[in-house]
């Protein structure tokens, strides 16, 4: 499991260091540290001010939404229960 976590983290790191293809081009007061974008004005311990103002809270249940896997099959988010899960939002531009 540790090897899988390692690889998953590294891939996530890679994705964000590629940056231009997935993450936002610019963020308010953004600065870089070792090639990794850091939010300024957001607390690195949580950095969730906007999400909190949108009504989300740590400890709340994930919403009951059904999305799709990359093959177009329905994927209810409840299917991710049973293990810890990381969700990272992004797009091509």
């Amino acid at each position, binding site marked *: 499991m540790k090897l899988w976590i390692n690889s998953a983290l590294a891939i996530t790191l890679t994705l964000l260091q590629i940056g231009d293809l997935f993450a936002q081009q610019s963020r308010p007061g953004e600065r870089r540290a070792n090639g990794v974008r850091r939010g300024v004005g957001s607390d690195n311990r949580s950095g969730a001010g906007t999400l909190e103002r949108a009504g*989300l809270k740590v400890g709340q249940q994930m919403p009951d939404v059904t999305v799709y896997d990359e093959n177009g099959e329905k994927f209810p988010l409840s299917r991710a229960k049973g293990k810890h899960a990381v969700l990272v939002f992004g797009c091509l531009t």
Partner: protein
Amino acid sequence: MQVFFVYKSLAHPEGGSSPFVPPFTLKERLLHVQEAKKTLGATVPWLCDTINNDLKHALGDRPNSEFVIDPQGKIVVMRDWSNPSTLRSDLEKIVGAVDKPTQVSDLNLKIETTPRPAASGVVKRVSLPNPGQPLLVEAQVSKIPYYVKLRAEADSDLLRSGKGKLYLGFHLDPIYHVHWNNLAKPLEWEVTSVGAVSVTPTKGTGPTVETESDIDPREFIVNVDSERDAGPFDVTVKYFACSDEQGFCIPVTQTYSVTLKQDRDGGQARRSGGGRGPGGRPPSRRRPDGDSPGGFSVARLMSHDRNKDGKVSRDELPGSLTRILDRADSNNDDAIDEKEAEVIAARFRQRLPRQRPTR
């Protein structure tokens, strides 16, 4: 531990190295996912949000947020902006540290760029004098894929009063790898159903281009005068779509319905040309009414005050501008009033140092 990338609506259509435009259908968004998968070369599984953006709306409407969920489905970590090093720290606390963390250099990722099927940069870009807001556009049923996507954007006057300028951009969708055939008739569009909306001119034709084929958008600015809460109007477009890869060049006629309401999931296009100086940069001059070089307009920001209470609340702001609220909201009422907008405009003008985080 599971990791998923969640593909969502485009934050900046036409941004980056490839001019991707918002998909119309789930099938098209899944093609985006395939493109992202191929381009990034990562093996992390992807999830694709619904075409109505249900998950994005349910989880705070941020462009690049991240969440850690426990096995019972509860949020244990959430972050406005994804931060890989902090995420690693979070996961080490949750599941434990590893002896030898894998680095990027340990992975052999094959990153591909999206190929361009024809020339670009041969047709001058057109845009509104100030960045417009995307409007709701619905594609009517067509047996042929929407090789061309209509992007409609309104200037602030149009959204506020029903009278102003409208951008109509016909963009080839890169997911279909098609190009214009400039040996055939150029693109033609016509407003075919108006209702309570007056559009001038009611039709247009794309430029004649000497280059045999290209992929540049065909863009137009029209004037609109509409009644309040006017219904949608239709735009019909005719063009030739060609694919060297698939060996076809066919005439296409498709129709869109455009509603003069902001599409909150339409993203903010970052495009150059059209009303700007050489190189696509805005002219370096001061603008009236609290505007500042670089595009921050107090008037434009306050035009989002739909209920006319003298301030722009989070609900009234398009998603792409909510970060301005985070910076400007000095009295923590979750809204920007004109005074707070002026402060931000002044910072843009004077390039005041931004607030540094406390550690």
